[in-house]
């Protein structure tokens, strides 16, 4: 019976041309969103390739020079293919790799620099400095990507299809007619919802896949299929939430216009007002720890270490006699020897301050994450970012690995520098290389799971409430 109702509905929708409009609009929105995402991905890929090529070229040129006799009288900081501090000090930009879905949800990737210059000069306290080249107005407005279309616009299309689920038939008088047949109100509603839900799911799945394909997603890349499946699951559950809202509103038995206003108000609350209130609450209850004061703490550590530079240097070589060239005393006058030993001390002093800051930040963000359950829009946005690999967690993971890589480079080059060793062909071969250890698919699933239940449970609850309410539906009058 449900199928028969659904088939009938399909004919009505097609004849009504509402569906046609919705589909056309959906195509325009998804098309624009996907093109934007693809353009963003292209720019990102180009930047990564440019940076990679620049580094490879530089190191390759240095390596080629190894065979030539050393130049006499080079400047202390000047090009020297055998100097551990010079080669280890070369800029090597390492990047957070893009997932195959990155173009679908730019997420936080345009804000949080997914780039670190890893060299022996790298310090934790200035890990992502000077990468903020985006127009701030664009960051404020946000991207017109598929995630935005899903989170903000997709519900509006669903509401346009569902605000008059039962009310229209009642207003036109056909509802009593239909119910005079051996069919329950529940079945009619189920048929109408099933058809619309089917159409919306088919369209969103189809368009998402098409969009992913158009934006150059390689479906065979590792993890791509799983991420894509999760993406679709989030989108479908989020859609289901809005259908459940529509069912509940329809079951209240008000007219089409009143339903439209109620649904618009719910949309406004979920997509605009609650996220805004969550921001306000977070700022009031859990203010972000101050970066400005953090700067001061770092400067104090730096002053302190610099004033004790001579002692720090001496103590360092007492602790690490193996790093002294045989039979030599530490060179107090050498700028770089001083710099690297003092820098080590500053980083050690600053580490607990940074740890505390990051801890406070993590608490604040965890608080906001809990508040996210107040709005399915927040959950969906965060989940889509996580699935596309453009969320905050993956970025933190990258920063940790990039910093560890810089430390690895320091561990490789600095002992050679202190021992005044010269680099050889074998050292060039053994130089550390950066490879991002991406999160496992299971981790992504685990991270998205709370959001999925946070979407599914309210959807189910609203649906049950709606069905209960349907028993008291005023068919006449």
């Amino acid at each position, binding site marked *: 019976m449900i199928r028969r109702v659904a088939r009938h509905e399909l004919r009505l929708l097609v004849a009504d041309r509402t569906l046609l409009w919705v589909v056309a609009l959906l195509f325009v929105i998804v098309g*624009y969103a996907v093109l*934007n995402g693809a353009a963003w991905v292209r*720019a990102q890929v*180009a*930047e990564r390739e*440019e*940076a990679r090529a*620049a580094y490879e070229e530089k190191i390759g040129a240095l390596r080629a020079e190894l065979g030539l006799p050393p130049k006499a009288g080079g400047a202390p900081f000047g090009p020297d293919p055998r100097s551990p501090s010079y080669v280890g000090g070369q800029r090597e*930009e390492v990047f957070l790799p893009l997932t195959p879905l990155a173009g679908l949800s730019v997420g*936080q990737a345009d*804000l*949080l620099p997914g*780039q670190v210059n890893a060299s022996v000069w790298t310090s934790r306290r200035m890990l992502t*400095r*000077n990468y*903020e*080249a985006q*127009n*701030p*107005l664009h960051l*404020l407005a*946000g*991207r*017109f990507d598929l995630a935005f279309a899903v*989170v903000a*616009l997709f519900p509006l299309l669903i509401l346009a299809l569902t605000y008059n689920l039962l009310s229209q038939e009642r207003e036109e008088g056909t509802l009593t007619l239909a119910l005079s047949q051996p069919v329950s109100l529940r079945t009619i509603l189920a048929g109408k919802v099933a058809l619309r839900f089917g159409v919306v799911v088919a369209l969103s799945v189809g368009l998402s896949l098409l969009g992913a394909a158009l934006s150059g997603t390689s479906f065979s890349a590792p993890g791509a299929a799983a991420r894509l499946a999760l993406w679709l699951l989030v989108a479908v559950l989020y859609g289901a939430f809005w259908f459940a809202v529509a069912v509940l509103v329809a079951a209240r038995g008000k007219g*089409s*216009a009143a339903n*439209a*206003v109620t649904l*618009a108000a719910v949309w*406004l609350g979920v*997509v*605009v*007002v609650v996220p*805004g*209130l969550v*921001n*306000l609450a*977070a*700022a*009031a209850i859990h*203010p*972000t*720890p101050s*970066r*400005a*004061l953090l*700067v*001061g703490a770092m400067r104090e550590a730096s*002053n302190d270490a*610099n004033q004790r530079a001579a002692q720090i240097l001496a103590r360092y070589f007492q602790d690490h006699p193996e790093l002294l060239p045989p039979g030599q005393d530490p060179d107090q006058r050498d*700028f770089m020897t001083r710099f690297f030993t003092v820098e080590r001390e500053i980083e050690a002093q600053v580490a607990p301050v940074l740890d505390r800051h990051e801890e406070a930040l993590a608490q604040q963000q965890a608080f*906001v994450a809990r*508040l996210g359950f107040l709005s399915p*829009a*927040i959950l969906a*946005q*965060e989940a889509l970012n996580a699935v596309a690999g453009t969320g*905050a967690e993956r970025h933190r993971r990258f920063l940790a690995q990039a910093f560890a890589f810089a430390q690895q480079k320091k561990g490789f080059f600095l002992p050679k520098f202190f021992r005044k060793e010269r680099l050889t062909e074998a050292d060039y071969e053994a130089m550390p290389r950066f490879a991002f250890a991406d999160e496992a698919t299971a981790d992504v699933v685990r991270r998205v799971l709370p959001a999925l239940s946070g979407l599914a449970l309210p959807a189910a609850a609203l649906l049950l409430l709606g069905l209960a309410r349907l028993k008291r539906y005023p068919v006449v009058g």
Partner: protein
Amino acid sequence: MIATIAKKELKEMVRDGRFRWGAGVALILLVGALLSGTAGHRRAGEERAAARELDRRTWIAQGAKNPHSAAHYGIHAFKPDAPLALADGGITAYVGHTVWLEAHWQNMAQHRPAEDRTAVQRLGELTAAAVLQLLVPLLIVLLTFGAFAGEREHGTLRQLMSLGLPRRTLALGKAAGVAAGLGLLLVPAALVGAAALGVASAPAGLSPSLPRVGLMAVAYLLYFGALVGVSLAASARASSARIALVALLGFWIANGLVMPRAMADLSERLHPTPSSTALWGAMRDDMANGLDGHDPQDQRRKQLEQRVLEEHGVTKVEELPVSFAGIALQEGEEYGNKVFDKHFGALWATYERQNRVQLLGAIAAPLLAVRSASMGFAGTDWAHHRHFVAEAEGYRREVQRVLNGHMTKNAKGRDFDYRADASFWETVKPFAYESPGAGWALGQQAGALGLLAAWCALGLAAAVLAATRVRVIGGAS
């Protein structure tokens, strides 16, 4: 007569539950946003003041050291939070508030508050500006969509016309009624806002901000006038109240939700922002190989040496009465300044071109014009940020001149081994920033205000025109 109509409209509105709810919620959100903005502003102010004091203290306490080491230690410029940021934060969360002023490099402003928050921030902040730009227009739509179409459907329009009432008068009366209804919401909010501003700008008091507040008020009144006009026109033109509502909701969504993002992406496509890798790569390249690509750094240094030797009529650097290292450092700064002016100038020009494209979007979406004007008058837009960054950079250049001048004069024969006295740092005067006045902001926002004025004039004209042609009978289906 206009007053009578307005009074009737207002009475009807106040009695309407939807208006009471809508205006009540908007008022609560507006007041909440203002209070939260005040708290945030005060916290930011206290933090920055403390950080500024700490930065100065650490600068003075750095002890005896080489002026160039001090130049690398650097000074931080902390951007003051504009008092009106409590009403409109503008791009504040997406630009850094700290600039590290060090030797050799013009750094980007770092510590963008949004980086420390979660993706919820990107769904939109609930500021007074957001309520005024997004929610009040929705209220206007709900208040006006039935103004003509509704009266026609109820048959009262026919009665009104039979009284010989000029339609223009009716349109103006309706507009005045809506304005009075909005006044019920906006006047108390403005009073709370003024009080909050008074508290926020405690030492200076309210009066320095008043011209900016006045300009902001003008921008919003023009915006609301435009929306009232457009809505009344739609109500008069539409064949039914339902169609007027749907069309106006569509306009509201396009204006508030779709256009800001769509225009941001479009402007980025038309005027691409360089990647930070490309930007800094080009700057490093210009430093190393010269602005014209044929003037490498070592050659520039040799030429400088020759010139200085000739100026002093000596043949060897050791014979100079001053420190050549100091001269070379300053020369390096001067060259760097040219490179920074070229590349940051180009980057900022790109932002400004992008922002102009977005402002042009205001031809279709007035929100883009009021957003620009509002943050411009609040002092939280790109122009104000650029002003601060440019002043900070000017100060950096001045500090470098002082430090290198000191080195040149005092470090003869010792160069980098010279240590300036611990008391020297106090003679470097601290950074004092004066933000530009309201007149300057008005100059920046003349285009946006012009667009708003045009929207307002055309909107009201359209309302009057549509009213004179409104169909009195039929149309309701």
